[in-house]
């Protein structure tokens, strides 16, 4: 009897023990899971959440800007700056000098740093925003501000004249840097980083140039040339959608998806303009239109003399690299002796265009693209255009890319052979050849580089506006520029294609 009752008791006890254990397990497991959920939850709080938790006692020091503040990072940056500056100087010297060489304008035979000190003022990071816009990628936007006191002296050697040291002072950089991290399954988990400056808000890079032991006026045009060179480097290599791709990690990574490549072609017909503003004292304006997607790849219509309602009917092909962010910019100029006056600008974001859909539009001309600067509400007339956007298929894209590669190789070969002094000169030659036929303006270029002094200034100016533009076009990247028709349009400007 005792045995059975003992067994029954034992079984019951054993089962109860197990049941108890199971209960404990559940309880502890639930506790842990709920804690995990809580921790996860508080890792990304927003204002409403905090309001709910804290009620009325919400601390005043908390705010939730889109770009999260990183005071701690700035504190570190301040402290680290003297060391960082030292280390960075060496790197900049090694990496920027070749870039300068690549973009060196003609008329300048050497462009090097003779002093490079980044100064004592550390840059500030105003805020950081992290987004995941695409599967497998992290997009980090850094609001970067630097009002530094660097001491940078560029040794500029202008064509057979003299070497003048040019000091770059009061550098100010305000820009949003976008870094895209491509994730991978291998340590360190980031296979490549894409770096670019955001186009919106536009990067602001200000500086003043000063000649050491002399005046810049001694070498006219040099200041403009440097401005243009810096500008070209920034807009053509750094500003979104142009980017720098840095592969990380030892393994070979396919970064071709990250590289910028042509995605489509916009065929634009500039029909006419209506009621343009008169800028001339005598007679009427002589308007022409300059169109571009990338600033370095501009095309122009011919000039219609003395007309405020000009009709052009000219068609251009423009290559787009990023449909989401790029726009077609139309600038209407009045051709004039000396500097051409701008009659107005219009912007057409590519996003508004549908692929393979013909579209007729009337664009209102504005005094400036910067909405903040527009003061007057005066009517500046309008521009009638016709647009078809054609998205590249895979094959077309590949073809475009190959064409681009071929062009780059050709240029490098020419450079290696010593035919060209700099990459810029190639265009100089073609440009002056075509330019001679086209107009007096380009004539300056041909003669200007050999001559010194006054003509150099004009050449420099001219080059800054158009030749540099051609370089970009001929240089590569926009593959469409390699078709014969386009290249003529680029170089000469005004050869309409019958529509």
């Amino acid at each position, binding site marked *: 009897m005792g045995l059975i009752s003992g067994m029954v008791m*034992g079984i019951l006890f054993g089962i109860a023990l197990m*049941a108890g254990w199971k209960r404990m397990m559940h309880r502890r497991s639930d506790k842990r899971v709920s804690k995990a959920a809580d921790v996860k*939850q508080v890792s990304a709080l927003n204002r409403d959440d905090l309001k709910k938790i804290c009620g009325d006692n919400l601390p005043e020091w908390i705010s939730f800007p889109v770009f999260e503040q*990183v005071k701690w990072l700035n504190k570190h940056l301040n402290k680290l700056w003297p*060391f960082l500056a030292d280390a960075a100087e060496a790197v900049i010297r090694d990496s920027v000098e070749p870039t300068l060489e690549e973009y060196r304008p003609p008329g300048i035979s050497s462009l090097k740093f003779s002093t490079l000190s980044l100064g004592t003022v550390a840059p500030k990071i105003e805020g950081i925003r992290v987004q995941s816009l695409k599967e497998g990628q992290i997009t980090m936007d850094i609001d970067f501000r630097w009002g530094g006191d660097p001491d940078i002296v560029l040794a500029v050697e202008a064509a057979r004249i003299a070497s003048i040291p040019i000091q770059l002072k009061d550098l100010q950089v305000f820009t949003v840097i976008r870094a895209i991290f491509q994730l991978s399954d291998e340590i360190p988990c980031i296979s490549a980083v894409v770096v670019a400056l955001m186009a919106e808000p536009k990067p602001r890079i200000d500086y003043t140039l000063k000649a050491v032991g002399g005046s810049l006026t001694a070498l006219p045009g040099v200041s403009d040339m440097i401005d243009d060179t810096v500008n070209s480097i920034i807009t053509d290599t750094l500003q979104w959608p142009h980017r720098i791709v840095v592969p990380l990690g030892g393994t070979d990574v396919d970064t071709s998806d990250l590289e910028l490549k042509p995605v489509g072609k916009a065929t634009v017909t500039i029909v006419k303009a209506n009621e343009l503003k008169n800028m001339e004292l005598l007679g009427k304006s002589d308007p022409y239109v300059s169109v571009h997607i990338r600033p370095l790849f501009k095309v122009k219509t011919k000039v219609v003399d003395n007309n405020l309602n000009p009709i052009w009917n000219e068609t251009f092909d423009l290559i787009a690299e990023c449909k989401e962010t790029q726009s077609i910019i139309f600038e209407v100029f009045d051709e004039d002796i000396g500097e051409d006056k701008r009659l107005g600008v219009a912007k057409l974001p590519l996003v508004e265009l549908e692929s393979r859909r013909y579209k007729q539009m009337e664009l209102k001309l504005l005094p400036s693209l910067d909405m903040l600067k527009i003061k007057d509400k005066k009517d500046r007339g309008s521009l009638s255009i016709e647009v078809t956007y054609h998205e590249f298929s895979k094959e077309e894209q590949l073809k475009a890319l190959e064409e681009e590669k071929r062009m780059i190789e050709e240029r490098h070969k020419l450079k290696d052979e010593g035919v060209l002094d700099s990459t810029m000169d190639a265009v100089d030659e073609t440009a002056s050849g075509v330019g001679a036929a086209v107009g007096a303006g380009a004539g300056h270029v041909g003669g200007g580089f050999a001559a010194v002094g006054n003509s150099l200034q004009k050449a420099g100016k001219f080059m800054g506006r158009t030749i540099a533009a051609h370089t970009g076009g001929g240089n590569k990247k926009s593959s469409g520029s390699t078709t014969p028709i386009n290249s003529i349009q680029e170089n000469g400007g005004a050869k309409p294609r019958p529509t």
Partner: protein
Amino acid sequence: MGFVSMIMGFCGFGVGISSGLVAGYFLFIYFQPSDVKNPTIRPLVEQDSKTLQQLLPEIPFWVKNPDYDRVDWLNKFLEVMWPYLDKAICKTAKNIATPIISEQIPKYKIESLEFEALTLGALPPTFQGMKVYLTEEKELIMEPALKWAGNPNVTVAVKAYGLKATVQVVDLQVFALPRITLKPLVPSFPCFANIFVSLMEKPHVDFGLKLGGADLMSIPGLYGFVQETIKDQVANMYLWPKTLEVQVLDPTKAMKKPVGILHAKVVRALKLKKKDLLGASDPYVKLKLTETKAPSKKTTVKHKNLNPEWNEEFSMVVKDPETQALELLVYDWEQVGKHEKMGMNVVPLKDLPPDESKTLTLPLLKNMDPNDVQNDKVRGQIEVELTYKPFKDEDLPKDFEETGEVQKAPEGTPPGGGALVVTVHEAQDVEGKHHTNPYVRIICKGEERKTKQVKKNRDPRWDEVFTFMMEEPPLKDKLHVEVLSTSTRIGLLHPKETLGYVDISLADVVSNKRINEKFHLIDSKNGRIQIELQWQTS
């Protein structure tokens, strides 16, 4: 009878409890799912006040304390990256563990041991705030509040004697408050030489350990014991002031400390080529070590001489004899205009035997490009006598600055006395009425020293070191530090201005051995100066 029945009862209980446990195990535990689920997270706004109450202890530091910064962007970054990190870490862990396991198994008579599941779960670690401390030393200190309440699943299956047992770790939670110190800071990437990590509090560790599906950690008492043991173990190793040190750079290399001195004697040049139109050239020699910022040294100018003899001696500090080289440039001096280069040559320091004088006669070249045809032209020769003297180990300066230790006073210090080493680091917000070209003058017991002048800068940085010898500890003396500015122009008005001064009592230095502080300047609006003082005794 009663006794026998009691015995029987006990026996029955014994048998019963074991079968009961087995029955209970199969009834309640065995069929429990062993897979790990992701916790469902409801938006905060929807939750009631009771669950919110539960959340209160988890409120991140940045909400409660203004000295913590929010780093939600980092959390977001980690969250997106986590699936990739998870895969990468698990793969690496497996790759490391597999060979070790296969090596160890035979010793323990285990048939096989393998990971049935290895994942870190869907929940990434989170940062609940970031705090930084600023000190006057060359270091960066940060304290991220790290919380990882994950749902990893690590299941190890062990097979032995035909039986299989699984051990599963679930719901690992680690909350820690590490302090990360980066020091010393160095002027080459990544800009710091060491990483020191230590924990400021005992970490909180919690997890479930399932053996055959039953969580051992839920046995009352055992959990507390295990947790305490782990905490103590970790605390023994890493709780502040114990640290984990990770070296990133070799600090002596990174700091580019002087390792020797190069004595160079420019003897003469021979058969220099004429450069001036009228008369002979006026040559002088410029000497420069590569990779240094020190200004180049120059000999005197020998006028109208194409075979000049200088016999001038120079000494230069060498930081890396392997890569540095001595550049010798011969110039033609001109009264007006650019001095023309007459030729050059380079001597790599690694070609010089240490502590041995070597006389070299080098041809002068146009440039160092060996293929340049212009170098075939004869430009003359230069004769130099070079001696590289590396520092002996004992006079190699120890990196006292980094370790914070005070080094021994130099030899020749009188007994009882010592050396006062003053490092003028930097100043902030110094401003003159008419000009701000600050330099520092320090006066100690009548001895006066000056730093270099920094032009047009309100926040100058000097980093200059001065040493004062003392007969006895300067217990009653003061150090006078004065920031001055002189006009760069040879101005008649306001040639000199005082931007502020401070008197530092040296008794503190003697008792503390080392002081590194920012002092507020007197006679200055908001100026501060950072001075490091060391008292070195033999």
